[in-house]
């Protein structure tokens, strides 16, 4: 009955198809900006923006090692707004990785991964991986020194996967080295397979959120009144979208996307670095045996992330940032300890003599693998015992502390790799890199 009243309004609205992505009414408490910061919506908008700018770029780009670089130069120098177009695509891609990551943090710290939102969480992880893969496959396309060597270095990381590593790398590259088949593979993944998968999974992601009753809110806010999506939610989304688009346009008109010299397969730049979001892995590889850095840690983290929504939790603090006052305190503690411990770890690993040279008769899987891993585990266990005793945390708060420790240490590793590693990947101050 009520539906009939709105039909006329919906037919009159030319955007009513897009409106179908929303429920007709939303809970008033779910509109609070600092509950979600609009991050999921921003990520969705960025995907749309990437599709649009990407489709335009495709008209000028030629996926061959001979012409790819020149087609980018040509696009930038002789095409009306060509440079800005590439800049928007470049900066939005980086923004998308950031915002998707922050969106994930929001979901973690408001406990929105728990049932009944578990499917959204799992498919959210898949989307995050697809975002990173899209970014990575796009990284190669300009075919300059930066992209060629970043892809060479990061696909070489794969060769350390036992048994299947070489096979995976050669499948991805279409050969033993980065070349024409690689460019063909990456171009088709980047402009066809990955965006298509992403859009389909996004649909499912959204649908499951609606099935779970929309955005998570705290228990005390669950009986707040329902209001019309149009205009209450739409106006807010519009403002967020405009601010995001305006910032990206501004950034893209001021800052150019990097483009180095044309790729030269026989000269690596010094240092040769993986794309920034893989720098944490590359940094980890300096300190750990490849098996731990490339297989052990990433697989463990991914498995833990998939397992997360199925852990039994007694508290009902979902929808509240950092769960509780105790949760907030332990979160701060975990943040500070994470930074301190990781910096300490990097420092010690730099100052202490290389265990491989010290104990040349012991396999490096032990000296650079099991021993540091054991030290790390004991430190973590000790830290958790301490804060659990001090603050008498419940299970959710402990899990939250572990997650913060992991995220903080990966962030510190990434920042170290990007800003503190110069020539020969040696540790130095950022202004000397």
């Amino acid at each position, binding site marked *: 009955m009520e539906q009939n009243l709105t039909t006329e309004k919906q037919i009159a609205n030319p955007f009513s198809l897009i409106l179908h992505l929303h429920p007709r009414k939303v809970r008033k408490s779910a509109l609070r900006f600092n509950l979600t910061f609009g991050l999921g919506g921003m990520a969705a908008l960025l995907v749309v923006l990437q599709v649009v700018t990407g489709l335009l770029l495709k008209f000028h780009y030629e996926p061959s090692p001979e012409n790819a670089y020149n087609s980018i130069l040509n696009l930038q120098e002789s095409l009306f707004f060509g440079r800005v177009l590439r800049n928007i695509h470049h900066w939005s891609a980086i923004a998308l990785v950031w915002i998707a990551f922050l969106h994930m943090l929001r979901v973690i710290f408001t406990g929105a991964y728990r049932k009944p939102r578990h499917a959204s969480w799992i498919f959210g992880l898949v989307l995050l991986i697809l975002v990173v893969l899209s970014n990575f496959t796009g990284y190669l396309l300009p075919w300059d020194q930066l992209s060629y060597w970043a892809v060479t270095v990061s696909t070489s*990381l794969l060769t350390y996967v036992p048994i299947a590593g070489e096979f995976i790398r050669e*499948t991805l590259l279409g050969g033993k*080295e980065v070349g024409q088949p690689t460019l063909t593979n990456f171009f088709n993944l980047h402009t066809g397979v990955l965006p298509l998968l992403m859009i389909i999974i996004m649909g499912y992601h959204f649908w499951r959120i609606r099935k779970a009753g929309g955005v998570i809110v705290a228990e005390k806010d669950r009986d707040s009144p329902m209001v019309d999506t149009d205009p209450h939610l739409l106006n807010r989304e519009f403002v967020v979208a405009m601010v995001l688009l305006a910032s990206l346009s501004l950034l893209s008109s001021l800052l150019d996307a990097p483009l180095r010299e044309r790729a030269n397969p*026989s000269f*690596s730049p*010094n*240092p040769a670095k993986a794309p920034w979001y893989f720098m944490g892995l590359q940094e980890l590889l300096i300190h750990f045996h490849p098996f731990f850095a490339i297989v052990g840690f990433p697989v463990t983290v991914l498995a833990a992330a998939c397992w997360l929504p199925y852990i039994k939790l007694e508290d009902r603090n979902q929808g509240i940032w950092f769960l509780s006052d105790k949760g907030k305190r332990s979160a701060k503690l975990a943040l500070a300890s994470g930074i301190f411990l990781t910096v300490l770890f990097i420092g010690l690993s730099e100052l202490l003599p290389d265990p491989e040279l010290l104990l040349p008769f012991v396999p490096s899987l032990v000296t650079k693998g099991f021993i540091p891993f054991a030290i790390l585990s004991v430190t973590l266990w000790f830290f958790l015992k301490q804060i659990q005793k001090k603050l008498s945390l419940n299970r959710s708060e402990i899990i939250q502390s572990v997650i913060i420790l992991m995220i903080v240490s990966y962030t510190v590793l990434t920042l170290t790799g990007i800003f503190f590693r110069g020539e020969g990947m040696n540790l130095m101050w950022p202004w000397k890199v």
Partner: protein
Amino acid sequence: MKKTVESNDATSEKGRRDFLKKAWKILGVVAAAEFVFFFISLLKPSKELKKSNPGSTIRIIGNIEDFLPGTVTPDRINKLYILRDSKGGFLALSLICPHLGCSVLWDETRKQFDCPCHSSAFDRYGVVLSSPAPRPLDYYPVILEEGKVKVDLSQKAKRRKFETSQLTYAI
């Protein structure tokens, strides 16, 4: 689904349906696996191998007398270094660092190969002087024919250590 049969043989009917449902599921999994296999084989390297006819992987690097004993000569087009050691033995070393695939550079003063990416170092025979490189530089057997130095690019070999059998001597 609506149940249409409510007779005595309902149980056998149910068994048949369950079996068919399961069969469809298995077929679905098989089809998906076939598709994945097909997709991976599309990505695989065969597309570049077909292009080159056999024999074309042998490259002439130069004349034997151009390589003096005790020198290392880069060949950037074929991405290798030709070493002729002081006793006259030839060895072709891949310039790809076995750590993460960067190109190593020959340092003439220190007589070693340096990797710019993670500062691995190798001696003139490609043996690791400092990690993180996990193994020596890959090598190609050198062919000496008709006064020319030739390398078969398809014969790239990994190795654990340097052996004199990897060297080729001019007769």
